[in-house]
């Protein structure tokens, strides 16, 4: 089936099988491998991207469902070689250890701040409940998000 999907500002036209998952479309068809597949069952959040401005889990969406949508992946955050403030905050606050959950965490965290620009620590923790860090490095992830929000 023919789909037209805009990813990081660039429109792509592709012919996909209906069963193609959006995360596989992003990684394998477009070659954007920053978005990771973790649990593959909408639990871990490693595959989090933005679809029409909202954080979603791309392992549980079909590429055909995203036909006509505007997506942003981790690769689309930096502008002219300058990192997004959330990426900078993760770097400065050591918000990553092995890095596997990081793209999803950063995308979920930006989505969280879009909906709640000045969250409390509790709201950050609850707001990121859909993202798991296998290193259990939550402390500095929460710190990074609060720093990006200017809450701390």
């Amino acid at each position, binding site marked *: 089936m023919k789909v037209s999907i805009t990813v990081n500002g660039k429109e792509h036209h592709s012919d996909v099988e209906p069963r193609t*998952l959006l995360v596989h479309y992003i990684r394998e068809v477009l070659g954007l491998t920053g978005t990771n597949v973790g649990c593959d069952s*909408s639990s871990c959040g490693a595959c989090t991207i933005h*679809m029409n401005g909202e954080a979603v*889990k791309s392992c549980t969406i079909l590429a*055909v469902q995203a036909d006509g949508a505007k997506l942003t992946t981790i690769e689309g955050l930096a502008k002219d070689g300058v990192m997004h403030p959330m990426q900078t905050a993760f770097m400065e606050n050591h918000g990553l250890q092995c890095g596997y959950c990081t793209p999803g965490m950063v995308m979920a965290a930006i989505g969280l701040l879009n*909906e709640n620009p000045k969250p409390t620590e509790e709201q950050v923790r609850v707001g990121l409940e*859909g*993202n798991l860090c296998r290193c259990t490095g939550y402390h500095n992830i929460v710190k990074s998000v609060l720093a990006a929000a200017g809450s701390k």
Partner: protein
Amino acid sequence: MIPAAFDYKRASSAAEAISLVGQYGSDAKFLAGGHSLLPLMKLRLAQPAMLIDIGRVKDLSYIKDAGKHIAIGALTRHMDVETSKVLHEHAPLLSHAAAHVGDSQVRHRGTIGGSIAHADPASDLPATTLALGATYVVQGPKGQREIAAAKFFKGFLESDLAADEMLVEIRVPKMQGAGWSFQKFNRRAQDWAIVGVAAWRRKNEAGVALVNMGSTPILATSVAGALAKGASVGDAAALASNEADPQSDLNASTEYRKHLASVLVRRALEDASK
């Protein structure tokens, strides 16, 4: 995990979706947000030959004040139920429960109609709408019919929906200031409830429904009946499992679930009585 191959059609209206499902029969499934169906398809627990995508039927996404009840379009997303001012005012139990479905990414995609039509006893919204005495409006080739939530759930993932019918609206009676509580007991964030309770109370009137306490969401009529006769919260809560038939699984034994249900119903009723 990639689902088995299927054919895919997109419907632009409820009528078109029903006409399509009429052509393909029981081999077809409706796809709304996909957050219940796609995980099952990846695991081959569901293997429909045809998916009819209703996710673009925009006129089924709404929350309206309809006088005595609030009308919610079946394709309204959990996030919109969670943040609706109309529901905050007239059915706060429902918007609160919607905020406990999955996580925010899931709530951006999953729909209230999808969750109810999926009829999973472990899901939060089937039991919550059951406690509230909701009516579901379903549409088939011959038009619409209304089904009381108490008569909708027939078995594990089974409902009164015929293969060629689609859930189109959920009607939730206004709570009229009733006290309410939603108790969800789980071991990890974003998990399904091991046991959950949705309850409201106004003087001697009450509605209590249980999550994950049988093959369907369970209406705890004994609890409401005892409260109507003036029983204490503790005595009423002891009857929590009268209508239930919980299974043992890796999270909890049958006995543990029954005990937990009594504890959570008591907490819910205390909370709703404040």
